């Protein structure tokens, strides 16, 4: 199995072994062992729910620190569309772009600009594709892609195969720098993605070996926020101009990507539990005849990312005021819409990782294990209290049969046994 590199980790000194993350993890990837939470890397989808919900801030996201950026290089900032919703009283995107330059970036390339190009390619892909494969599912949220490869492998061929905006932004930004500064070589340039979520870090880390990655650093939005804020000055007239329109910036919140397709045959859902339900419905075939499904793991879309600074709903309102003065769309494909989509714009199809949930590689053996699990499950209280370290009683039964836990870990059952002993006068 290919080892998947994650960006969610645990600070063991802060973890109290409580059961919060255990219960909130949508793939049951967490167990509490020896009083500390452990993440099963084969099941983790980097959704960040554990980071969002940990009451002790013991769950962390791995990002590149702003200090670690090599300042001797030609640096290009790639701000995510959601960054534009983080600042109060910002009604003109140019002030933020100028703030990034003032901070020390040599150039800024908006991910929103790339998102408009991706939007155009997505329209083209839907138009050119076999209608029976509908609905197509957006691949922009890396959590959704990983969730599908893990739990809904039969839906992999519904994923839109266009390279996501951040990667397109990185590529175009580097090409632009090389063109505008002929003295630069490729190794002199570094792109820095300013991200609202850890899943994008994992996505960059797990770029297939045969694919070139155009993102050099991924920094967290909250890490860079105050440093950029202090560089944004109202009295200073920006020297840069935003190159994206309403369509690109709207990718920041749920429904933005889908509504940019300019028709009403789409659905947008956000929040991890909600998107799992939608995927279940698509798989069951009980789904309205739609062209496109946009799914975002975070509540409200990317503005709800765990590394965003502002409340997602406030960020959304702010984006509305920025959008008011923006053109609809600034980046269009110029060629004939029937032209084939170029190889360079195509994303790699995710693998089938559903074996991560298998009890055993041999069917007969996993069948025997499941029989055993059901027998043990009947002896458990069904309270799903998490005290044993597993998220549910059923998961505990599974752990026992896999040899990872014992029946004695169930405190409720132990208490009942003690009571019985007392009653019998033992």
């Amino acid at each position: 199995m290919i080892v998947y590199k994650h960006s969610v980790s645990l600070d063991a000194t802060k973890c109290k072994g409580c059961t919060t993350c255990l219960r909130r993890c949508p793939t049951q990837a967490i167990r509490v062992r020896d009083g500390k939470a452990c993440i099963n890397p084969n099941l983790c989808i980097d959704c960040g729910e554990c980071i969002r919900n940990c009451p002790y801030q013991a769950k962390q996201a791995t990002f590149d620190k702003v200090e670690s950026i090599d300042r001797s290089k030609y640096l290009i900032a790639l701000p995510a569309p959601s960054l534009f919703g983080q600042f109060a009283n910002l009604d003109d995107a140019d002030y933020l772009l100028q703030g990034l330059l003032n901070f020390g970036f040599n150039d800024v390339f908006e991910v929103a600009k790339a998102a408009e190009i991706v939007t155009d390619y997505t329209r083209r892909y839907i138009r050119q594709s076999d209608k029976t494969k509908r609905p197509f599912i957006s691949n922009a949220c890396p959590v959704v892609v990983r969730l599908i490869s893990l739990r809904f492998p039969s839906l992999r061929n519904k994923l839109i195969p266009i390279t996501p905006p951040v990667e397109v932004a990185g590529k175009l930004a580097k090409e632009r720098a090389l063109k505008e500064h002929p003295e630069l070589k490729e190794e002199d340039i570094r792109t820095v993605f300013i991200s609202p979520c850890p899943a994008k870090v994992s996505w960059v880390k797990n770029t297939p070996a045969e694919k070139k990655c155009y993102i050099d650093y991924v920094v967290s939005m909250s890490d860079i926020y105050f440093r950029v804020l202090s560089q944004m000055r109202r009295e200073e007239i920006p020297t840069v101009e935003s190159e994206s329109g309403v369509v690109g910036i709207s990718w920041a919140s749920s429904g933005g990507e889908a509504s940019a397709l300019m028709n009403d045959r789409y659905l947008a859902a956000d929040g991890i539990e909600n998107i799992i339900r939608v995927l279940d419905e698509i798989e069951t075939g009980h789904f309205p005849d739609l062209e496109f499904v946009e799914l975002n793991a975070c509540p409200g879309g990317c503005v709800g990312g765990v590394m965003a600074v502002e409340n997602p709903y406030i960020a959304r309102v702010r984006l509305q005021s920025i959008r008011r003065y923006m053109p609809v769309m600034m980046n269009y494909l110029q060629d004939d819409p029937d032209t084939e989509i170029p190889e360079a714009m195509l994303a790699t199809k995710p693998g089938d990782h559903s074996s991560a949930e298998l009890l055993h590689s041999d069917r007969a053996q996993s069948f025997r294990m499941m029989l055993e699990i059901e027998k043990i499950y009947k002896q458990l209280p069904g309270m799903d209290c998490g005290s044993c370290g597993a998220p549910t009683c059923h998961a505990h039964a599974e752990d026992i049969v896999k040899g990872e836990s014992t029946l004695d870990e169930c405190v409720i059952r132990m208490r009942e046994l003690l009571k019985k002993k007392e009653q019998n006068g033992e």
Partner: protein
Amino acid sequence: MEEEALHFHFDVDGNNFASAGEASVQVKRLLRQMGFSPDTIRRISIAMYEGEINMVIHAHGGDADVYVYPDKIRVVLSDTGPGIKDVSLAMQEGYSTAPDNIRSLGFGAGMGLPNMKRYSDKLEVRSTVGVGTVIEMEFISA
């Protein structure tokens, strides 16, 4: 003696339309853990979902029992609803007795039983008017 089966029981709540389909989602996970192929899992979840919806629409709910063997899966859906007057008519695509309010939700297209037949390897319908309906489906697994 028949070989030992894994048995899962689900109550299908007739009063909660939104919960219809819960059982098929749970079954999906169990089958994935045992390594059944995505195609088999998909067939079962579609057929089972249709059955669950039917029980909610027509019979105020019922019982769903799933028996898993290493090489096949048997799904038994039983209810004490009004029963089906003419089974062969109900098996025809597009034939539906669902009320308008159900149709307005996008259900009741008359594809329930036909889909169950299409996606299962064996389908048996036993129904008595005024007593109830039992539907047995079998899926040979790959």
